[in-house]
């Protein structure tokens, strides 16, 4: 290559393209320079390299000071040493400093074993912290989704970057200066009172225990032990594509059968699938889409287009807080989690003769916003939530380990009927573009009355932030867009506000890559290949399914026949749809 730069790192020569950093070049040579603030989710174009933690410093010949390898570009004939006495001493001291302002409660910290600070301390062989002195102390903030303990913040600013640059939410920001610097919401207010959408991406990237999920594991153990309760579980599609990672399996290994077996061993009365509700979502949302579309085609100028998906609770929080003027655009369909809860506590409970108050519906989600969603008042009947609570993929893995279940030796088992049956269309809900693709499969057939031969809409798949496609629906050019990350969604919403939006339907997922990259998933530790692999697992499972269109799910068909009537019926409206609220900040002038 013409642009190549040749340099020496630890006496080994390497040629790299111009613009490569020392860290990247060293990693190519297999030299593992430790990092903390640095994070590069390459495939998603998400990068944090403020060069601020100073753990990755190296010695560059001819330079006065040590250089942060994460932010120093390679130059021709550079001579770099990553392991001299000077470097090792500096790195240790910097880490000891960091540890001297960090609580020493590793044994009981939620991130223990999964903590990048702990890993670095192990790697550098830290045995004592020679610095005593003041420690930064802040109060713990518990929200329905996230536990925030700023005392543990190491000021890597990854969460700030995620919350501001990627998600454009702006709930978290750097505050104060000097030793009191910390990342927190404005005025140290609780997350619940801030702009926070509970997307959980701050948790997904936090290298330490400053941001973790609010755990419901203990609550679940108690409920499972209570003989007077029937505890059932639903699992979101993205969980099966990532759970295996917690047990050492490579990313992208689908573990559906083992997961079902594990849940059964844990003592759930029934192991159901959120995918069933995903198919149901398509029936409702697809019908709503066609309703608005046909009204538009019939010349209705008032019709609200584009229709925007509403399965993602982070996204719902986002538009309720940031775009309260556009509450009429998203579909009124509840998310699959909530549709499942509503059906389980009515149709299924009645069928089984279980009293509502004796039934506990738990969900396993790749998501932290689902915890908040399950607590929303709209989804309660006489104070009893349709979904009692939600646990994350990580919490499930921890529980399996705690209960001595040897995950790897479990047989593959199937979900229970009837709420465990699903189509391929539902499985792909877990990846960005999946909901749109599933909706297109059904909407096309209902609208045209024709059979869709090729169900793969490649145009809406993939890891790009914004995907666009035009589908020929019997001569009508249906324009759709798929966005993941709230920053991309904001761009579309701004277009919508400005009247320049050219789409008929939009899918939005708050998390990068969709639910597979959710805030409740096993930590990616900066490896975006993991997220890509999870998507692949879902599309493979879709391809292997016998039914791949939601309206073909026989249990869905019978649910409508036996209970709901037809999509958008009054009962469906009551149980499967919702409304949105202006939750923006209001300034009252006195």
């Amino acid at each position, binding site marked *: 290559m013409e642009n190549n730069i040749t340099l020496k790192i630890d006496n080994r020569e390497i040629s790299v393209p111009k613009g490569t950093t020392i860290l990247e070049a060293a990693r190519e040579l297999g030299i593992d320079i430790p990092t903390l603030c640095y994070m590069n989710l390459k495939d998603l174009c998400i990068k944090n390299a403020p060069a601020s933690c100073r*753990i990755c*410093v190296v010695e560059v010949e001819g330079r006065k*000071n*040590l250089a942060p390898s994460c932010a120093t570009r390679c130059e021709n004939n550079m001579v770099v040493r990553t392991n001299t006495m000077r470097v090792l001493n*500096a790195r240790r001291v*910097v880490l000891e400093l960091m540890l001297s302002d960090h609580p020493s409660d590793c044994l009981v910290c939620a991130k223990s074993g999964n903590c990048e600070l702990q890993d670095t301390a192990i790697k550098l062989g830290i045995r004592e912290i020679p610095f005593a002195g003041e420690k930064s102390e802040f109060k713990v903030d518990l929200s329905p989704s996230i536990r925030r303990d700023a005392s543990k913040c190491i*000021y890597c600013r990854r969460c700030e970057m995620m919350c501001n640059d990627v998600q454009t939410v702006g709930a978290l920001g750097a505050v104060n*200066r000097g*030793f009191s*610097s910390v990342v927190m919401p404005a005025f140290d207010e609780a997350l619940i009172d801030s702009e926070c959408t509970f997307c959980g991406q701050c948790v997904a990237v936090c290298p330490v225990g400053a941001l973790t999920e609010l755990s419901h594991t203990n609550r679940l153990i108690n409920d499972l032990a209570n003989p007077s309760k029937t505890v059932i579980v639903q699992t979101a599609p993205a969980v099966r594509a990532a759970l295996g990672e917690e047990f050492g399996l490579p990313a992208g290994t689908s573990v559906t059968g083992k997961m079902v077996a594990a849940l059964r061993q844990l003592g759930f009365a029934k192991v159901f699938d959120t995918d069933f509700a995903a198919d149901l979502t398509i029936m409702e949302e697809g019908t709503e889409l066609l309703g608005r579309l046909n009204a538009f085609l019939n010349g209705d100028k008032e019709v609200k287009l584009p229709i925007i998906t509403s399965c993602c609770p982070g996204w719902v929080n986002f538009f309720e807080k940031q775009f309260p003027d556009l509450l009429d655009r998203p579909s009124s369909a509840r998310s699959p989690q909530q549709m499942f809860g509503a059906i389980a506590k009515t149709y299924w409970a009645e069928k089984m003769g279980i009293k509502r108050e004796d039934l506990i519906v738990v969900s396993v989600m790749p998501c932290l916003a689902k915890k908040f969603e399950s607590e929303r008042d709209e989804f309660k009947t006489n104070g009893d939530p349709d979904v009692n609570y939600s646990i994350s993929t990580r919490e499930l893995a921890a529980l399996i380990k705690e209960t001595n279940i040897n995950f790897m030796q479990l047989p593959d088992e199937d979900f229970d009927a009837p709420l465990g049956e699903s189509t391929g269309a539902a499985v792909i809900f877990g990846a960005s573009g999946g909901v749109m693709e599933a909706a297109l499969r059904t909407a096309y057939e209902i609208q045209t009355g024709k059979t869709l031969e090729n169900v793969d809409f490649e145009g809406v798949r993939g890891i790009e932030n914004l995907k666009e496609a035009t589908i020929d629906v019997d001569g009508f050019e249906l324009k759709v867009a798929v966005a993941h990350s709230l920053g991309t969604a904001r761009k579309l919403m701004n277009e919508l506000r400005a009247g320049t939006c050219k789409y008929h339907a939009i899918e939005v997922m708050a998390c990068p890559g969709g639910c597979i990259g959710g805030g409740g998933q096993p930590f990616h530790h900066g490896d975006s290949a993991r997220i890509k692999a999870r998507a692949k697992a879902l599309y493979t499972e879709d391809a292997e399914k016998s039914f791949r269109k939601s309206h073909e799910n026989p249990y869905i068909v019978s649910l409508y026949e036996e209970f709901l009537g037809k999509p958008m019926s009054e009962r469906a409206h009551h149980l499967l749809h919702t409304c949105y609220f202006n939750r923006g900040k209001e300034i009252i002038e006195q």
Partner: protein
Amino acid sequence: MSYKMHVLVCGGTGCRASASQQIITRLEESLREKNLEDEVQVIATGCFGFCEKGPIVKIMPDNTFYVQVKPEDAEEIVNEHVIKGRKVERLLYKDPEKKEAVSDSKHMGFYKKQLRIALRNCGFINPENIEEYIARDGYSALAKCITELKPEEVIQEIKLSGLRGRGGGGFPTGLKWEFASKYQADQKYVVCNADEGDPGAFMDRSIMEGDPHSVIEAMAICGYSIGATKGLVYIRAEYPLAIQRLKIAIQQAKEYGLLGQNIFGTDFTFDIELRYGAGAFVCGEETALIHSMEGHRGEPTMKPPFPAESGYLNRPTNVNNVETLANIPAIIMKGANWFNKIGTERSKGTKVFALAGKINNVGLIEVPMGTTLREVIYEIGGGIKNDKKFKAVQTGGPSGGCLTEKHLDVPIDFDNLLASGSMMGSGGMIVMDEDDCMVSVAKFYLEFTVEESCGKCTPCRVGNKRLHEILDKITQGKGTMEDLDTLRNLSRVIKDTALCGLGQTSPNPVLSTIDNFYDEYLAHIKDKKCPAGKCKALLMYHIDPELCIGCGLCARNCPVDAIVGERKEPHFINTAKCIKCGACMEKCKFKAVSTR
């Protein structure tokens, strides 16, 4: 209208604090009474530099220099000097050695060794009148540049002059301009860093207050050289007078067509706006300054990219500090070869220092590079106050270090100061005597750094905090020998790993005091004693019964009633109550109170 006589009154912040504004009013009143207002003009100038003796009033053309003038002296000056031509003897400066009055500043020790380039107009002109600046060749340099020289020729001249940045780092100014000139962009910026933050330096403010047009002219010259049409002055909001004078100067320059479109009838366009700092020392670092101007937290970022490539609003930006810029017009007018003959081999020209501390002549001075510390302290500064013993001089502010007796004959320049374990910095020069505890001084600077650290990088955020805590421990008498090792190693690591200039230099006060005053650290650690008697925790106030006459003055002045005793009997200090404020010692006329 031409005046026969001018009365220059210092309008710098220091003298204004001592009622120089009232002096002006009283002078004008008095002149009006005598119908002299058309013959004698009173001018409020910028700082004369000799702050110790402020307020200063200077009468021209006879160069009479009055010191420590009070408003009530105005009438006498008018009656005696202006009308009768008799100097007011009692207001003249008295030479401390010869004990005789000196009326012309040229013959004062304080001014003899000075060479004023950056401060050339301070104390000579009314900074609020552009005509006075023009009368002293103001804006000729700009005219010369844009009508006679190509931009690259201007840059060449600055390069040849050897001028280095006066804000701290000492980077060659011409080279900096050349970098900025090489990048192409739709817009480039010239930024003047006027966010002076060194807690013992005020030269930039004095220049802006005393000679704002020199900064404006230099910015325009820089704009012409690098191809920028916009200038921004990033100035401390705590400098209201400098802000006001700059605003007036910019307005006047616009009215005179020296800023704006088609300057001197050429295609050259240049405008200047002010941006306000909000109290963050780290904004002296140019990337932090740029972020602050953009409305962000003033946090530095990695270089490269340098501001010359991507600065304000991601456009090529050249940042120079006030003093650096103030040199530019003089260099253009008198030539690089004049400038580069002044100073030492690698540090050309002069440097302004804010001389303060335990020195007789506190003030603002400008000396050729290469002047020795001895000359500055003993000749210009007039020696140590109250005939105490010289102990150290701190240069470079929080980034610098403490120099001692053995450094007194070192010629001051960028490289020598660095080699001696300190640095030039922005030019603070604080003199300390035997009563100053060097551990406390190091702690004082670290306290400043801890407060001013932006917090972005670990070594500066946590490291400086820990340095400060260890120093505090030592001043409390709780230090150990291991602490000394920790201080040294930690200091070295912070210097080696911190992100920006602030962090990379913050341990200098610690390292230089350990190097030069090791015994003093040992005394605190091993003997639990503070030789200078500064560290409260190591002090015990005591009244000598032999010397105490029982006047009770100490008891009456004790804020916590810790002193007891019968009248005319020796008094005692209740050490449990004593807060060690030292008020008793200060008040006692019989030297009966001592510390041990």
